[in-house]
């Protein structure tokens, strides 16, 4: 613990003086070749994560969240890639298009990732300790490595008494495996942790514990987290800000509080309505499923499922950024008249000035 707390202090000091964003994704577009078709996994995605911030990326299955995460850490499928455009600046380093050797160096100490299915992301024939040791910086003494491993496991919520480092993955429960994955991700002392559906595969009780551990690490180490999930409950518990993704596009961006109180995009609204305890009588719920990412038209991608869809929606919809920093990709943001007509939105909106038409391209 002693060594890591020292790391944390140096880290938070740099974070304090450096107010620039830790992660900036600009205009990220990832298209994949699947046989004769082009799957638009991500289209013009912009997102930012500040140092020490916890940001959520939420969306249904197949909305391209994971593809964005993989692009950030540089795990793009090179062969299927049709085109990959935009910028991913992580801690001052452009990650896109780096050759693999430099990419490895760029990732070290900057970003780590944990996944939905810890079982398959741990090597079944290696002891947990050995797997963590691989991620530690080279040049440490044997004793030091052992101490570090124990400290990391303890931080991830696996006390040293259990002897986890000598176990194999199949001897651990799902929650313990995910904690081991977290310890492994912490080994390189990253500034950003990308957590891709970290609790989806776990039992509900274990989910809460693992989330608490993540939150604790976030606060203690000042480590930024990009949390990818389809579970709005997890977002509410963990995140400062949220991006909502639909069919490869960011459709709404807001801080967590205002998103839950005042969702601007119909999709977000319906997503919130799908939460059992949030349901209000008579409000629309989500029907159908996400469109085929290889057969997208030019207009709003949510149009086929949207109760407010009109002719205007056939045109391409830009993300409308408002003065308070919120943004939504919907035509309803433009004219208050339309919105009033729909009378589905919350009533207490005072700042009903037309949103600035800032088009982010």
């Amino acid at each position, binding site marked *: 613990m002693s060594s890591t707390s020292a790391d944390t202090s140096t880290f938070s000091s740099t974070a304090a003086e450096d107010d620039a964003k830790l992660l900036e994704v600009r205009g990220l577009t990832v298209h994949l070749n699947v046989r004769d078709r082009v799957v638009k996994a991500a289209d013009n995605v912009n997102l930012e994560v500040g140092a020490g911030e916890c940001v959520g990326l939420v969306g249904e299955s197949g909305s391209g969240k994971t593809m964005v995460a993989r692009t950030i*850490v540089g*795990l793009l499928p090179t062969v299927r890639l049709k085109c990959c455009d935009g910028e991913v600046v992580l801690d001052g380093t452009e990650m896109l298009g780096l050759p693999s050797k430099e990419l490895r160096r760029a990732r070290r100490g900057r970003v780590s990732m944990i996944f939905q299915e810890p079982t398959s*992301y741990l*090597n079944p024939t290696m002891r947990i300790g050995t*797997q963590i040791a*691989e991620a530690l910086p080279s040049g440490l003494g044997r004793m030091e490595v052992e101490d570090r491993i124990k400290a990391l496991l303890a931080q991830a919520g696996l006390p040293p008494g259990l002897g986890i480092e000598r176990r194999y993955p*199949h001897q651990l429960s799902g929650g313990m495996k995910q904690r081991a994955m977290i310890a492994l991700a912490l080994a390189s002392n990253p500034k950003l942790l990308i957590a891709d559906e970290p609790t989806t595969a776990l039992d509900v009780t274990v989910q809460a514990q693992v989330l608490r551990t993540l939150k604790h690490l976030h606060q203690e180490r000042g480590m930024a987290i990009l949390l990818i999930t389809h579970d709005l409950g997890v977002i509410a518990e963990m995140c400062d800000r949220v991006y909502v993704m639909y069919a490869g596009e960011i459709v709404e961006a807001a801080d967590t509080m205002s998103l839950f109180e005042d969702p601007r995009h119909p999709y977000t609204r319906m997503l919130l309505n799908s939460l059992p305890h949030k349901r209000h009588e008579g409000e629309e719920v989500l029907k159908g499923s996400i469109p085929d990412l290889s057969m997208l038209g030019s207009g709003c991608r949510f149009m086929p499922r949207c109760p407010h869809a009109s002719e205007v929606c056939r045109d391409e919809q830009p993300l409308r950024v408002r003065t308070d920093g919120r943004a939504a990709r919907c035509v309803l943001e433009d004219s208050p008249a339309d919105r009033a007509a729909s009378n589905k939105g919350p009533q207490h909106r005072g700042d009903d000035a037309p949103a600035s038409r800032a088009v982010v391209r």
Partner: protein
Amino acid sequence: MILYALRRLVQAIPLFLGVLFLMFLLLQLTPGSPIQAIVGRYPVPPEYRRIIVQEYHLDQSLPERFVYWLWNMLHGNLGYSFGSHTAVTSLIFSALPNTLLLVVCGTILSMVVGIFLGFLPMLIRGRFVDGAVSMGVITGFAIPTFWMGQILIVVFALKLKLFPVSGMSPLYGAASGFGGILQRLQYLTLPVLALSIPALANITRVQQQSALETLGNDYIVTAELKGLSGGQIVRRHVLRNSLLPVITVIGYSFGTSMAGTILIERVFGWPGIGNLLILSITRRTNQTIIALTMMAAAIIIVVNLVTDLIYGALDPRIRVT
């Protein structure tokens, strides 16, 4: 681990009994009288026929006959070969070491080379190496080993005179000591080369596939994210894990090599059980044929058991439970 070993052993026993039953069934289907089915068409003295009827209780009903057949087989009572005037057991045990030498050397060779060749496309990337290895595998499956043996004899023994043409030691003046070992190796080389081809192709293919599949596992992504280089990933994560499936086919390869010796021993005049089998087929001494087959099956079952245990020892998922 002990439990796993015991379970494997228990699974192997009915398998061997099944082989014995299969042989018994085959003897029932053999044309001619039951006595003739057992002793074959080679002339035997009438007293021996009487002994056979007694020992195998051939006057009893079919299920009882099977029980006595089992009894005799499991007690190593494999009969007497009037063609060679020796008990079948001693006949087998004089020939078996020669065959095992050939098969074990062949298996080791195909293992070492096969694993190396299967990995080659990962070490040297590019279409050429990969295509060459794949093509080699397909051809290796299609080459008749006995023909390969003949070609090897023609090229390396007759034209280049590097190796002896046939046999396993010179008729006169065998060297002793270190020279003797060298001489032995000289006689071994060509038959082992020819014998190992199908097993080599098989192991190469399995290794190549398994390396590919291991590379597709999610923990390779983790390793990549840890910052390990390509070489480190291959060495630490791919190599060991991809070797596991290969171990499982080594037993099978041993079996095919065991069968392959029948052909190879004929080509190279190697005094093993393959030659013995052909001899007993031409002489129609059925007892020897049956005994040899069961011996081969027993050896293969044991080798499969051993590879299973090795697999269990290497895979922690089995070792610890």
